[in-house]
């Protein structure tokens, strides 16, 4: 029985409507607000053109936030994805031990971001926190640092906390992807004399391409929108050293009563994320076409 042409659209209509109202419209409104000086409270505001963007361009705090986001981006894509992949390769087998390890690694993902952040705040506490007391106990007291109070260390400490969950996320993505790697191909390769590394690099990895694309895309998005961990653990402190775009936007919009500026930061965040994702996906699709698949 042939479906009528309007059937798909009929199914799409309701979700599309909800999407337009609750996602598209606020995005458009944010774009509009970014060109105003609205403080988020008054009933009136003025259009100020590119003022907000000009301010951000020369704002020291904004530069720090941007730089920190780059660090987050590198952390998520260059660290979380490879380690997640390695763990997936390691635990892609049957057995009680493998299952136990997988569950333990995955455990952080079951905790809300805020809970993770609060827990790690206590662990990283300078004087009585678990990490520093543990380091002293095993004789590595010299390595103990004020993790969240030192402006040069704080962003890395926050990224490490975020990676704790993000690595597990990447691992799960790759484990799922590996289910689609045909075992016969791998066996055929080993019969042909390929080493373990060659099997991984030339057979498994290319077959994991879809999972890889998702993992990297999600990592880019998650790193650029990181907020919970930063806001709960340091509020972007000390004095703005661990600021990221999302946190800075929140403080500008809701603490400083500068909604227009907050919206401008959101717009910039959107543009960055959108460009990165488009470039990446376009590159991937070109690769796909190149391979004729």
């Amino acid at each position, binding site marked *: 029985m042939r479906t009528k042409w309007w059937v798909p659209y009929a199914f799409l209509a309701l979700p599309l409507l909800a999407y337009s109202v609750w996602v598209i419209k606020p995005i458009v409104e944010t774009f509009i607000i970014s060109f105003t000086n609205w403080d*988020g*409270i*008054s*009933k009136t505001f003025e259009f100020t053109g590119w003022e907000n963007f000009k301010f951000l361009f020369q704002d*020291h705090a904004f530069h720090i936030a941007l730089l920190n986001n780059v660090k987050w981006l590198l952390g998520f894509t260059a660290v979380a994805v490879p380690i997640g992949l390695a763990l997936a390769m390691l635990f892609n087998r049957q057995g009680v031990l493998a299952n136990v390890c997988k569950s333990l690694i995955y455990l952080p993902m079951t905790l809300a971001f805020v809970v993770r952040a609060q827990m790690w705040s206590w662990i*990283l*506490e*300078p*004087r009585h926190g678990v990490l520093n007391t543990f380091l002293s106990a095993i004789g590595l007291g010299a390595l103990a640092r*004020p*993790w*969240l*109070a*030192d*402006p040069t260390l704080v962003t890395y400490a926050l990224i490490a906390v975020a990676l704790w969950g993000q690595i597990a996320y990447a691992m799960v993505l790759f484990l799922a992807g590996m289910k689609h790697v045909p075992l016969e191909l791998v066996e055929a390769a080993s019969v042909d004399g390929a080493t373990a590394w060659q099997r991984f690099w030339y057979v498994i990895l290319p077959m994991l391409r879809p999972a890889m694309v998702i993992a990297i895309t999600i990592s880019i998005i998650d790193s650029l929108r990181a907020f919970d961990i930063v806001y709960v653990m*340091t*509020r972007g*402190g*000390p*004095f*703005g050293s661990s600021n990221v775009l999302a946190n800075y936007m929140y*403080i500008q919009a*809701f*603490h*400083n*009563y*500068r909604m227009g500026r907050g919206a401008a930061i959101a717009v910039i965040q959107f543009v960055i994320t959108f460009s990165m994702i488009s470039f990446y996906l376009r590159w991937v699709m070109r690769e796909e076409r190149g391979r004729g698949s």
Partner: protein
Amino acid sequence: MFRKGMLVIGAILFLGLLGAAKEQIVVNSYMSDPAPREAFAQLVTMFEEQFPNYDVVVNTFPHEDFKTLLRTWLPAPEGPDVLTWFAGERMQYFAAQGLLEPLDDVFADGGFSALFPEAFRTVCTYGDHFYFVPQSWYWWGVWYRKSIFEELGLTPPITWAQFLDTCERLKDAGYAPITIGTKYLWTAAGWFDYLDLRVNGLDFHMDLMAGKVPYTDPRVRKVFEYWRQLVDKGYFLDNHSAYSWQEGASFLFNKEAAMYLMGQFIMDVAPAEVKDDIGFFRFPIIDGTVGVYEETPLDGFMMPANAKNKEGAKVFLRFIAGQESQQFFAEYLGRLAANRHVPPPDPMAREGLDMILASDGVAQFYDRDTNPEMATEGMERFVEFMMFPDRLDSILEELEATRARIFGQ
């Protein structure tokens, strides 16, 4: 079966009518620390007993988050009936936008002067109208562990030189002389405010808050130079930017630190066994020719312009302003009631009140006296100074750049 069904429906209708007979008053409160929260809950029960036709719903929010949530309630079409808040610029900012309901009815017939000291009038009004009902206020001081002082033969210092000497002796004995938790920034502003009040006086301080004085003024720099004396000698707790103020206070409570510049509400979180060992003294005098000024933040309630039950809110606010409720709240927490007929609840409050009465004037607090955006920038720079005092020049320039931008030139 039919009769039973009718009985049930009748009961439900009756209960529903009973519930509907009560008017609701919605109060959003930031009193998330256990002691004030409990005090307020009991106050609400007292109110409901006296006014049984009202049902008061109290929504309590974490103190820091309340400050940001507030701005979502005020411009909404309909909001809560009563809000806890702070007097001064923080309240006047909203009044200026027409987001608050004038409370002149609550203070009809010279009610305000009858209930509250004149000194509170300016911070509860905007233009010609009242917008704020003060409930309690507290003094700021340097809180210290009496046992540590006794152990080292110290007495509370009065002058700056004596204070430095006290810090040095404490440091030699292995204590952190001054504890502080600057994670949420405002505790550093306490130090700035007091040093500015001691070095430059109240008029200069209020001009600075109002954006009339540049931050690069030599008088402002002088404030930082006194501050630097404490920072350079390492008198402040290590890594204070990792701690909230309560976590900073825990070092005072477990005797790792000896002093804390803080508001009286530190006693809200002090463990029972430690309370008797904590006293306070006035922030040391730096310049004998400058008047003695203190910070006395005033807390209370206001009504948003979008409140649903304005008449009910006014009844509640009149109750709050009255002597009975003010006395109850003050006694429960050891604070000072705004109502001038309420005596100080305990000897410590008496001490605090006497200290304030002997002062030449009061300010509210940095983030209650100045523009919110300036406050955030200011407090961040203060914490940066405490961690990197060598950056003073760039810090002052950044502060000045922000001030010029916000207050116009």
